[in-house]
C-alpha cells in the first residue's frame, strides 16, 4: 500500500500574545512557541510605540526638553524630569538648596508608591481577582490626591525645574499629605498581608517565572526584578543623589526570585517609600527658597556633557545629555530606561511554564513599553531604517 498523504504535526504551536493588550494596556508582542501547554520559546517584538523622543529633544531647547522628557512615560514622569534636570545642573555646575532636594525626594517617593500600587492591582486583575484590583485602585487614588496637593497635577507633575522645584509646600499641605500617607500605610500593610497569605494569589504566583541570582546578573536585570532575585542593586543607595544621602532607608531584597517575590518586593518598597516620605515631611529643612525664578535662569548652557542616573520605580534610569555650547538645543540626549533591560532580556523566564503563566510573568516584570520604544535607527542620508540587535541595545550603545 502506497502512502498518499503525509501529515506533518508541528512540534510547537506559535502563539502571538499581543501586540494589543498582552496582559497590560501597552503594545508589545510576545511570540510564544508552545508544546502543548508548555512554553518552549518566547520572542519579544517591540517597536509599536516608537515616538522619536530623543530626536525631539535635540530639536527643542534645554528648558522645553524638561517637559518633553516628562512625557516619555506617564507613570514615571517625575523621575525622568529629575534625571534630565540633574544632568543640566551638572553641566551648569549648579548647586540646589537642601529644601528643594528634600521636596524632589518626596515627590519621587509618592510616584513610586502609586506606581507600585498600580502594578500590584494589575497583577490582581490578571489573575482574576478583580475585587482586589478595585480596592487597591481606590487607595491609590488617595496617593494621586497627595501628588496633586504637592505638585499641582495627579499624574503629569512637571514639578522639577533647573535650580529646584516649581512650587513650595506649606504646613497645611504637609498635614494633608501626612494624613493621606498614614491612612494609606495601613491599607498597604493589609494588601501585603493579602498577597502573602491569600491562597488564590499564592497558587498563581509562587514558583512562577523563577530567576536565579546568576541569571539576573548575566541578563543585566534591574530594579525590583533583580532585587527579588537577591541582587542588591539600588541607585538611591549607591549614588545617593538629591537628599537620599541624608535619609535612612533599607534596600529591600528577597531570595525567592519568582513572580510572588517580585510583587512582595514592591509592597515592601511601598512601605519603605511611606517611611521616606514621612521622614521628609518631618524634617524638611528651610534653608532657602526652593523655587527658582524661571525668568532668571541661564539662557545659555555651556559646552559639556553629563551622565546621571536615578532609581525609577522599575529600576535604574540613566540620562546622557551633551551640550555643544553654541546652540540653545542639546546636542544629544540619550535615555536608557529600566523596562528596556528587563523586557528584552526576559525571554528566558517564560520557558518551561504554561501559557496561562505568561501574562503573570510579564506583569510581574512591570513593563513600561512607552519608556523603552526608542530603538529604530534611521539613516537619513541612505534613506534606510534598520533595527539594532537586542544584544547591542542591552549594552546601552
Amino acid at each position: 500500500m502506497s502512502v498518499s498523504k503525509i501529515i506533518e504535526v508541528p512540534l510547537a504551536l506559535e502563539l502571538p500574545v499581543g501586540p494589543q493588550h498582552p496582559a497590560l494596556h501597552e503594545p508589545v508582542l510576545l511570540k510564544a512557541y508552545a508544546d502543548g501547554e508548555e512554553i518552549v520559546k518566547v520572542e519579544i517584538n517591540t517597536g509599536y510605540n516608537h515616538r522619536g523622543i530623543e530626536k525631539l529633544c535635540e530639536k527643542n531647547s534645554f528648558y522645553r526638553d524638561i517637559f518633553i522628557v516628562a512625557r516619555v512615560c506617564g507613570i514615571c514622569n517625575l523621575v525622568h524630569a529629575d534625571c534630565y534636570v540633574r544632568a543640566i545642573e551638572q553641566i551648569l555646575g549648579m548647586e540646589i538648596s537642601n529644601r528643594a532636594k528634600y521636596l524632589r525626594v518626596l515627590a519621587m517617593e509618592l510616584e513610586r508608591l502609586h506606581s507600585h500600587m498600580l502594578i500590584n492591582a494589575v497583577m490582581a486583575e490578571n489573575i482574576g481577582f478583580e475585587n482586589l484590583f478595585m480596592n487597591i485602585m481606590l487607595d491609590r487614588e488617595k496617593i494621586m490626591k497627595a501628588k496633586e496637593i504637592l505638585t499641582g497635577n495627579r499624574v503629569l507633575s512637571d514639578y522639577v525645574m533647573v535650580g529646584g522645584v516649581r512650587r513650595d509646600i506649606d504646613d497645611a499641605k504637609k498635614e494633608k499629605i501626612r494624613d493621606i500617607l498614614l491612612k494609606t500605610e495601613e491599607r498597604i500593610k493589609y494588601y501585603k498581608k493579602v498577597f502573602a497569605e491569600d491562597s488564590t494569589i499564592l497558587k498563581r504566583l509562587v514558583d512562577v517565572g523563577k530567576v536565579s541570582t546568576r541569571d539576573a546578573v548575566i541578563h543585566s536585570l534591574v530594579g525590583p526584578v533583580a532585587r527579588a532575585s537577591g541582587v542588591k542593586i539600588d541607585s538611591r543607595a549607591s549614588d545617593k543623589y538629591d537628599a537620599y544621602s541624608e535619609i535612612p532607608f533599607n534596600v529591600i531584597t528577597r531570595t525567592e526570585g519568582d513572580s510572588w517575590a517580585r510583587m512582595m518586593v514592591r509592597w515592601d518598597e511601598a512601605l519603605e517609600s511611606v517611611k521616606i516620605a514621612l521622614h521628609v515631611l518631618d524634617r524638611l529643612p528651610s534653608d532657602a527658597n526652593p523655587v527658582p525664578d524661571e525668568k532668571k535662569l541661564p539662557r545659555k548652557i555651556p559646552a559639556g556633557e553629563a551622565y546621571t542616573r536615578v532609581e525609577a520605580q522599575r529600576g535604574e534610569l540613566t540620562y546622557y545629555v551633551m551640550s555643544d555650547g553654541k546652540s540653545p538645543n542639546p546636542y544629544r540626549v540619550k535615555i536608557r530606561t529600566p523596562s528596556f533591560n528587563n523586557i528584552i532580556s526576559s525571554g528566558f523566564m517564560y520557558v518551561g511554564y504554561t501559557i496561562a503563566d505568561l501574562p503573570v510573568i510579564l506583569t510581574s516584570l512591570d513593563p513600561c513599553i512607552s519608556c523603552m520604544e526608542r530603538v529604530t535607527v534611521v539613516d537619513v542620508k541612505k534613506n534606510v531604517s534598520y533595527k539594532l540587535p537586542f544584544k547591542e541595545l542591552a549594552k546601552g550603545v
Partner: protein
Amino acid sequence: MRRPKLLKLALENLVSKPATIQYPYEQTVIEKDFRGRHYADLSKCTGCSLCSIECPADTIKMRPIPPDYEVPKSNPRRLYPLINYGRCVFCYRCITVCPFNAYVSTNEHRLADTAKNDSSELSLSTLRKIVKEG
C-alpha cells in the same frame, strides 16, 4: 451552620453608599492650585511672544487683537497669545516665564467641548470693547 465570614461585609455594603463619585451630580474635589485652564490678561500682556517661544507643546500662537477692542499702549503690535486647550499640556511654563505676570490661572479642569476650545473668548473678555457711536 457556621455563619459565612463575608456576611457582615456584604450587608454593610448593601446599605452603604457607592464608593464611586456620582460625577455629574456630585463634583470631584479639586485643589485650589490645581493646574487648570489659564488665559492671558490682555490689560497686562505686551505681546512679547516669550510664552509662545517657550511653550513645550507649541500650543500658544500669537494672534492680532481684533480692531474693535481698546488695547493698552504697552502692546504696540496688538498681539495676544492664543492657547489651544486641546493641545496644551498644562505645564504652566508660560505662566512662570511671563515677564509681566500677565497670565490668570484657574483650577478649571472640565475642558471637554464639542467646539474647538481656545482661550480667545476668555482673553478678549479682559479688554474693553470700543462702543461705536450712532
